[in-house]
């Protein structure tokens, strides 16, 4: 098709959108955040169980949305499980930088998440990529129970 489109919709991204990993709920002891993007109807229910030191013990999601938000959520859950609180925060920051600013060399720690870099050329789609991460940050900030984030808030 064209290069920018192919950079946005890389095979890895399309694969995660079609077969999202860690799709499901966590039965017990998880923080639940409902994130939505009212302008396009995307919704994500993020479940995170934090350890005593606030590390990410378990993380899953359900919901529906465009390829970018689904793939971003799927990749995020794979990346975050088992991370310490500090690592998770650093990843969220690096991801935000990746999709919003022109970085010469994306942090290697991002690994697979680097496929989301193509979003940079599509400013209207940045919030699709960020939705799961904003939900995660909300989960980190809240102690227990459930919360909400919205791209329009």
């Amino acid at each position, binding site marked *: *098709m064209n290069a920018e*489109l192919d950079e946005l919709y890389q095979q890895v991204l399309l694969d995660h959108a079609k077969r999202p990993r860690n799709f499901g709920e966590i039965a017990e002891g998880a923080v639940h955040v409902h994130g939505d993007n009212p*302008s*396009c*109807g*995307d919704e994500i229910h993020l479940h995170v169980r934090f350890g005593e030191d606030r590390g990410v013990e378990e993380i899953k999601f359900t919901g*529906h949305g465009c*390829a970018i938000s689904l793939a971003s959520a799927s990749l995020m859950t794979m990346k975050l499980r088992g991370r310490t609180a500090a690592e998770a925060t650093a990843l969220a920051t690096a991801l935000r930088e990746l999709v919003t600013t022109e970085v010469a060399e994306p942090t290697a720690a991002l690994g697979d998440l680097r496929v989301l870099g193509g979003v940079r050329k*599509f400013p209207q789609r940045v919030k*699709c990529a960020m939705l799961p991460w904003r939900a995660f940050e909300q989960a980190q900030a809240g102690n227990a129970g459930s919360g909400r984030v919205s791209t329009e808030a």
Partner: protein
Amino acid sequence: MHAPAPRSIDWAALRADFPILQQEIRGRPLIYFDNAASTQRPRAVLDALRHFDEHDHANVHRGLHELSSRATDAYEGARQKVARFIGAANAEEIVFTRGTTEAINLVANSWGAKFLKAGDVILLTELEHHSNLVPWQLLAERTGARLRFVPVRVEDGTLELEQLGALLTPEVKLFAFTHISNGIGTINPVAELCRAARAVGAVSLVDAAQSAGHLPLDVQQIGCDFLAFSGHKMCAPTGTGVLYGRAEILEQMPPWHGGGEMIVSVTLEKSTFKTPPHRFEAGTPNISGAVGLAAAIDYLEQIGRDRIFAHDRALTEHAQVQLAGIPGVQVLGPREERGALVSFVMESAHPHDLTTFADQQGLALRGGHHCNQPLMRKLKLPGTTRASFYFYNTHAEVDAMMEILRAAQRYFG
């Protein structure tokens, strides 16, 4: 209603009147299929605006100088033109607004504040654009009135009119509904709905945002009390719009905005107000916008809205037939009677991925809920992809869209 011009229409020549359409997006000819959101403006309108700004601009109804009289004549001339355009009995029934949204808010704030009380019912439909829903929610909150809705049939997007009798009880004081659904294209039988409203003593309001530039409209034939539309959806500039209100009703309505232009005399404590329509137009209006709206009306009437409707109908029909041939694509809304748009979902691609993909090929579609969140919820869809047409669009463009949709299906499938 205007008799169709005798000559046949050269649609390709009309298209050439639109400078903005003569461009490429990322190396591909622009295909503009987002006309339900906003249409483009022909050179005749752009020229009228420029001419006015270069020769005639001044404030209206104020200065006793030449330019002010020219501007006033242009502004009030535009009002008369609008009145003829929609078959209003007189120009005093035409209030200029910023658009459909402001027109509806005017009714909600002015008429609503005076005539609605706790326990009254505002009847709407499940098809409404947020701008014909939210103002009524706000009004209901303020007055204690209740909202009630005519349901939409999920199968074909038409209203369940067989329920109308049960819904239109004597508590209903206002029945507001769209003429054409911007989300799925349903055309409502507006004259019948207005008649039903009148039969129970309810006031009727027609949201004509999607119809005013697309088919012949006559408020007296429709029998509505209010009708609202936006200039930018019919070749006129943004920030222009109209509220038609039947004279007897407008006369009973209090002002909603206070300021200059709308008063007769002002003391420090109290003011008296002009008669409609000026009572509802506080402050300096969008004068050049009205000039542009008048030019747009001239332009559309030269073509004839009956012909525009027939042209767009054929284009929409063509798109419907083509879309039906793509497996995994579902077209929403009625099969027959529909406005100039197709709203659809594709199994393999989310509306936003599809519109991003299309945009890369120079095709402007809209993906999302189209300011119809309750309707989308009812249809159990997060959103749709919409292609909306106008008379400058072509069959070849629809064919090009189909190629792009097929390519998208391969890409995402």
